[in-house]
């Protein structure tokens, strides 16, 4: 009996020790994950407060920048970076303007919408816009676009 009791006491001690060690390990790993998790598993934030997008974030297919729907062309990335931060690229792709009106639109955004000074990018962006989204002539009324024909049932 004595032998049994001593053995039991010893094993209990070992068990307790193991439980404490395991718990500590679990707690420690959780703490480390929480504190360091961002830097361990996720990309580091760049110095300027932003990072480059992953490679496929700016993939271009059939002449279209997939992420924004903007046309491929010189000045595309300057346009993406400066013009799609606050508003959707759809606001660009919907519109058709000449140089004067694209510039006027930029001025309006700078005056009223918190758009920053575009510096030397302005000319690049305006060239991109005028080249890819110029006005076309519509006349006083366009023809109806070809409708989807369907048989009208009662």
């Amino acid at each position, binding site marked *: 009996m004595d032998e049994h009791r001593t053995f039991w006491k010893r094993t209990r001690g070992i068990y307790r020790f193991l439980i404490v060690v395991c718990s500590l390990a679990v707690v420690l790993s959780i703490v480390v994950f929480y504190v360091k998790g961002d830097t361990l598993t996720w990309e580091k934030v760049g110095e300027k407060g932003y990072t480059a997008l992953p490679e496929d974030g700016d993939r271009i297919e059939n002449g279209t920048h997939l992420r924004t729907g903007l046309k491929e062309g010189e000045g595309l990335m300057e346009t993406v970076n400066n013009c799609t931060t606050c508003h959707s690229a*759809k606001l660009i792709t919907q519109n058709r303007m000449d140089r004067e009106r694209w510039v006027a639109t930029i001025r309006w955004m700078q005056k009223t919408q918190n758009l920053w000074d575009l510096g030397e990018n302005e000319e690049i962006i305006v060239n991109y816009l005028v080249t890819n989204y110029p006005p076309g002539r519509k006349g006083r009324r366009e023809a109806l676009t070809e409708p989807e024909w369907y048989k009208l049932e009662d």
Partner: protein
Amino acid sequence: MDRKDKSNLKVTSVTPFPLKCPNFTETISSYSVMDRRKFVKNSVWASFAGLMGTDIVYGNYLREGYVPLGAQDPDPFQLFHKDPEMVLLNDKPWNMEARAHLLDDKITPNKYMFIRNNGLVPENIEASQWTLTIDGESVREQKTYSLEELRTGFPTHTYQLTLECGGNGRSEFDPPAKGNQWSIGAVSCAQWTGVRLRDVLEDAGIGDDAVYIGYHAADMHLSRDPSKEPISRGMPMAKALQDETLLAFQMNGKAIPLAHGFPLRLVGGGWPASVSGKWLNRISIRNKVHDGAKMGGSSYRVPCETVAPGDIVPEENMCIIESMPVKSLITYPKSGAMLPLGKKLGIRGHAWAGELEVKKMEYSIDFGSTWSSCPVEKPANRLAWQHFSAKVDFPKKGYYEVWARATDSNGVAQPMLLPGWNPKGYLNNACHRIAVKIT
């Protein structure tokens, strides 16, 4: 651009912003791409929980950290309970329009109602905490009301009111006008329930020098600059004091959908819909024409005197749009119908005329050479659209266009060609037409 674009949208809207918006740098642009999960959890959940419409009610019961489907994939059609046939024009800010055949209902349901937002939909709306403040230079006593006080303190009224975006039809102007390129679907006529703005303004007291009211709302500027309002427009006192001008808390008998101004919206039918401020929390009684965001420049203003297409118009020669012009839509059948010779075609649709009433409705199947009159019903109430219908005969096989033309109570009709050009492409009320083939 229609729902085909949704796949594209999915990508754009969850991608964190590579550059910075002013005053927005710290909160958003510091998220790296791989922080997306965190980003979704923290901010998108906060914003989209609010966007989920009915889900707001049960928001409390959601487990912490649970990201609802809508936030993971902000599909605006699901988010705002819109029909997939609606056309998405813009996803930041949200802008979506109907197509003519979707507007066939006499009372427009939410799923077919266009969305025109100038800023970001407000987040975390608490209707029980919501208040409306009446202030301004010309208020006798500044007062603040809870929604409950508005609801119980004043008589409730319901009107069916036509709301049309000032830029509806912009896509047709030449030279093209800047902005969302609306075709014909930025119009709706829902039933709005609320209290009269007049009753509330009078309760606070209207000074003798009152000229205009200006609204303020909870939506956020696209740049997230808290000192900027995306839009703060208003109306002259005469419009503010009309019976039909409401502080609405219901649309079609239910709480106003989030995209349309939950929990409180100013509704002034017959005027550019931008007059009807959403997410309303303050109204200023002004002693001058309200000077809030999008009251000046070329916003919701047209040249006081007509100009040649493409002219540059100085700001001082621009006048604020008030009543919208006479217009109509053929909502049945959908353009592209084919039917056999000898069969009559039943057409129907709606017509409206801003502050006025539509007195005459006509259609033409020969490009305006001859016109036939058809009956047009009286409006459900003032400022509601009116319904017309006709049975159309076609003399022989071939391609036809059915054109519709409404005339208002002043004898002014819709033009077949584009009306006067203006810098922002407002007020296009040219006749609507559908294509028909007789086989």
